[in-house]
C-alpha cells in the first residue's frame, strides 16, 4: 500500500475486456494485491463505462490482432466512451495492446509498428522516465516499435510527454538498449494533461520480486496512480 494521505483503495478502476484480452486478470490482480483496489470489468460492447476514476486498457490481442494491433478494438462501442472520458480529463492507462488501442483511437499520438526484427520479443528490459532510475520491466510484444512524424516527436519532446524510454541498466539511452526499434527509444507516452499513459512494457508483471526478479513495475504504477489520484 502506498504511504501517505492518498487512499488508493477507494480509487474506482474499470478494466476493459476485449474478447481476446489476456492481461486483464493480471492487471486486476496486481491492483488488488498491491493497492487494495477492487477493479470492475467493462465488456467491450458496453457503450457506457460508469463512474470510474481510471480506465485500464490491458494487454494483448484484443481481437486476435490479425489486422493492425488495436485497430479493431478502437472501433468498439466501449472505446467511444473511453475517448469521451479521456477528452473530459479522465485517467487512462493503456499497457501493451492497450497502448496500441490508445494510438489507434488517437487518444495518444503516433503508431506502433512491427518490431524491427519482425519477431515477437519477450524479455526484461530497462526503461526510465526523466526523473527515475533505470527500471527493470518485461516487454512481450510483436508490434511495439513507436513511430510518429517529426512534428509529433518534436511536440512530445518539447512538452515532456515522453513518459518512458528504453535504456540500459546504467540508464544510458542507446541503440543497443532499444529492443524493437522505437523512435527515440520511446517506450511510453503521456497525453497533454498527463492523465493518459500508454506504454508497451508490462508494469503489472513486475510488481513482485518473486516474479522475474523485479518489482520496479510498482514504481511506475505508484507514480501514475499518485498523480491521477491527486
Amino acid at each position, binding site marked *: 500500500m502506498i504511504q501517505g494521505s492518498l487512499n488508493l483503495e477507494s480509487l474506482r478502476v474499470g478494466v476493459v475486456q476485449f*474478447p*481476446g484480452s*489476456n*492481461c486483464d*486478470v*493480471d492487471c486486476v*490482480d*496486481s491492483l488488488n494485491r498491491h493497492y487494495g483496489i477492487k477493479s470492475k470489468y467493462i*465488456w467491450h460492447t458496453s457503450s457506457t463505462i460508469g463512474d470510474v476514476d481510471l480506465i485500464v486498457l490491458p494487454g*494483448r*490481442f484484443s*481481437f*486476435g*490482432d*490479425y489486422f493492425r494491433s488495436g485497430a479493431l478494438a478502437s472501433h468498439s462501442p466501449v472505446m467511444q466512451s473511453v475517448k469521451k472520458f479521456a477528452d473530459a480529463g479522465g485517467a487512462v492507462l493503456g499497457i501493451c495492446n492497450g497502448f496500441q488501442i490508445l494510438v489507434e483511437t488517437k487518444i495518444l499520438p503516433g503508431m506502433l509498428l512491427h518490431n524491427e526484427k519482425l*519477431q*515477437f*520479443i*519477450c*524479455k526484461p528490459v530497462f526503461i526510465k522516465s526523466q526523473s527515475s532510475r533505470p527500471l527493470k520491466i*518485461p516487454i*512481450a510484444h*510483436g508490434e511495439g516499435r513507436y513511430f510518429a512524424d517529426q512534428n509529433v516527436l518534436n511536440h512530445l519532446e518539447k512538452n515532456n510527454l515522453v513518459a518512458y524510454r528504453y535504456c540500459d541498466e546504467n540508464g544510458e539511452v542507446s541503440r543497443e538498449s532499444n529492443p524493437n526499434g522505437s523512435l527515440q527509444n520511446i517506450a511510453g507516452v503521456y497525453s497533454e494533461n498527463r492523465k493518459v499513459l500508454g506504454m508497451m512494457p*508490462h508494469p*503489472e*508483471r513486475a510488481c*513482485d520480486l*518473486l*516474479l*522475474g*526478479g523485479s518489482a520496479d513495475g510498482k514504481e511506475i504504477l505508484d507514480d501514475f496512480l499518485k498523480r491521477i489520484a491527486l
Partner: protein
Amino acid sequence: MTTLTNPQKTVKPASPLDKSNSSQFSALLKRHKISADEYQRIEASIERVPTLAELGVFSAMWSEHCSYKSSRVHLKRFPTTGSDVVVGPGENAGVVRLEGKMCLAFKMESHNHPSYIEPYQGAATGVGGILRDVFCMGSRPIANLNCLRFGERSHERTSYLAKRVVKGIGDYGNCIGVPTIGGSVSYDKTYNGNCLVNAMTVGLIRDDKIFKGFASGIGNLVVYVGSATGRDGINGASMASDSFSSQESGERSTVQVGDPYAEKLLLEATLEVLEKDLVVGIQDMGAAGLTSSSFEMAGRAGNGVFFDLDKVPVRAKQMTAYEIMLSESQERMLMVIEPSKWEPLKDVLLRWGLAHAVIGEVTDTGRVICHYQGVEDINLPVAPLTDNAPMYHRLIAERVSRPIESPQLKKLSESLRSNDFAKDTFLKMLRDTGSVEPIFRQYDHHVGTKTVYGPESGGAGVLWIRSEETASLPWLGVLVSAGCNERRVKNRPLVGAADAVLTCSRKIFAAGGKPIAVTDCLNFGSAEDPTVMREFSDSVDGISAACNNLGIPVVSGNVSLYNSTDGESIHPTPMIGVVGKIDDVRRAIPAVAVKTYQLYALSPLTFNGTLVSSLAAKVASLPATEGFLPEQDWKLEKSASELLKEWIDGAKILAARDVSQGGLGLTATKMMLGSHCSQRSAKWVATNDPIFEEVGATYVIELDDKSNYETMNSQAKAKGMRLFQLTEELHMDLLKAQTSDSHLLHLPFGTLSFSEMKSYWCQAHDM
C-alpha cells in the same frame, strides 16, 4: 424446437461401396489405410457393405492415432494409480491433486506429421489441440511446454522447420495468453525425415468441477460450438498414422489451419459454460473431428447419437457428409446439454461471438446415425469403433544386449586426454546444446503473472499459484519439466526411457520441488517393425520402473507411431513431462549461478560416469549404440534428492542443476553462462573425475555460504554421497576486468574466455 430424430422428409440410404472393380477397391482401402483383414472385420461388425462416409469413419477411428491399436497392449503396464490421482489415462487429460480441492490437469501430445508437412500451422495447431484437451475438462491452462526434435543442423530442411515451428508455437500460445515456460530441443540426423513437435499444457482445475466427455441423457441436445467446418485436415488422423516417403509430398491439405483468437474465445466460453453447469458432456473436436468426438462420447455413455449434418456450420461449399464428419478444422467443441439449457448456453456463446448450432441429439440406439441432404450417410454401431476397435500384438524382436565397453568409446576417452581434442569437443558440445534464448524470446513466458522461473533459469519451470482454494498455502508453487535423451533410449530403451522420467524429476528436485505425476508422448517408428516394437515395449517398462521407483504415476499420454521415412525409423523418443509441487515457492531456486561462480558437485562417493550415448560421443559422430548403458542406482538418486530437499528447505543453496548431457564440465559451465550475475573468472579445481562423462545421481550446486561446506559434506557422506568443489572464483585485476575477453574459465584442458564460449553457446539455434 423441433425434434431432430423424426425428420418430416424421407431419408434415402446412401449407396454402399462399389466393390466390382477390385483394383480400384483395394486402392480405396489403401488410401484409407484399412487392411484387407480390417475390411473383413468392418463388414462382419456391421453385417453389410459400408458407405464411403462409413469407411472414412472406420479409417479414422481405427487409425493408430485414435485407436492406439498397436500400443494399447503395452500401455496397460504403466502404473496409473496413487492417492493423488483424480483422473487417470483415457480421458482428455490426466488430473492429479495439488492441494485441497485444487488439482492439475495436464497432458502432452504430438503433432509431428503435420509439422513436418507444414511446420507453422502444424506446430500452431498442435498447441491448440493440447490446450483444448485440457480446457474442455474445465481446467484453466496456466503453462505450456514444448519438446522439439529436428534433423541435423546441416540438413536442408532443418532451419526452415525449426524457424517455422517456433514461430507457429509462439504465435498461437502468445495470442491465447498461456505462458510457454519450458521444454526441450535437440538436433540429430535421426530426425532428418521426421521432426517431432510435442506440446504439453498444464491447467488448474477444482476436483468438483471436472467435466468429462459423456453423451449422457437420452433426448439431450448435441451442440456444435466454434469455428465453421472446412475441408482442412480431412483424414489427418490416418495421415498421422502413416510413414513418409520422400517420393510423395502432396499431403499439405491434410494439415489444419489454426486461429488462436477463435481458440481464446472458445477457451473463455467453455470455462464459463462449465462453471455455470450448462453442459452434461463436452469434448473437443480434435483428431478425426466430429467423428471421434461423437463416437467417443457416445461410447463412454453407452448411448447413441443422431446428427442432422445439414445443421453443421460449414465454411466451404458443397461439402459431403464424409468431409464434414472427418474434417479436422480447428477450434471446435461438441457439447451435450439438457434442452432447457439451450437458451442460457446460447447467451454465453453469443457473448463470445462463437458460431453454434444444435446438430443432433442423444439416442438410446447405441449407434451414430448421420443424415445429410436427405441421405443417411452413416448408420454405425458405436462399440466396434471404440471399445472393440482392433488391438494388435505386434511382433517384437529379441532384446538386444551389448558389452558395456566399446572400443570406439575407449578410443574417444583416450583422445579426450589430449587438451586440444578436449577443447574442441567442449566447444562442439556447447554449440550442440547451447542457449535456447533465440527460441524462448519468441514465447511469452510471463503472461498470467505466475512465472517465478521460466526458460531463462535453465531448469524446471516454476509457477506461483494464488487461489482461494489454496489459501492455506499462499506461496504454493507448481513445477514442470519435459524432455527425453533419445540417444540414451536408442542405446538401451529400458534404461534410457527410465532416464527420461528421472531427468525430468531431477530438474524438479533441483528447483526444490517434489514430482507428483507424469505424462508422456511416445514417439516411435513403424509399428510393423519388430525392432521398433521392442523399443516401444522396453520404453514402457523403463518408464514404469522409473515411476515405481520415484513413486509417481502416469496419468495421461499420447502415442505417435510411424515416425519413419523411406523405411528408416527415428530413434525411440518417449518424451516425458513431469509436474511437481512446492509448498513455499519462495524457497525454489534456479539452475543458473545466482551470486558467484563458486560451484560444487553433489555426487555418489564412487564416480559412476560413462561416455555411452553421451554428448561427447554424439559430437564425435559416434552412433548412440556404442557401448551399453548401465542401470540407474535408485538408492543413490533418492539420497541425492533428499539431500537437495534438506538444503533447499534450509536455504543452504542458491542454485542447483542436474548433471546430464556433457557431464560435470558442461553442466557447471552452463550454470555460469546462463547466469545473470556480472561476469567474473573461475578456475576448475576438481581434478579427479573425467569432466565430460555422464553421471547419475549428481547435481552441481551453488552454496550460499562456503562455511557450511563441512557440515553439508558430512550430511552427504552419511547417505553415501560426497560434496566437492568444482570451481573457484578468481579475483581479478580491476583494470583488466574492463573487457569481456578478460573473463576466463580455466578448465583442466585449457583456458577459455567467456566471450569465446558465448560465441558457440549462442550459435545453437538459427532463428
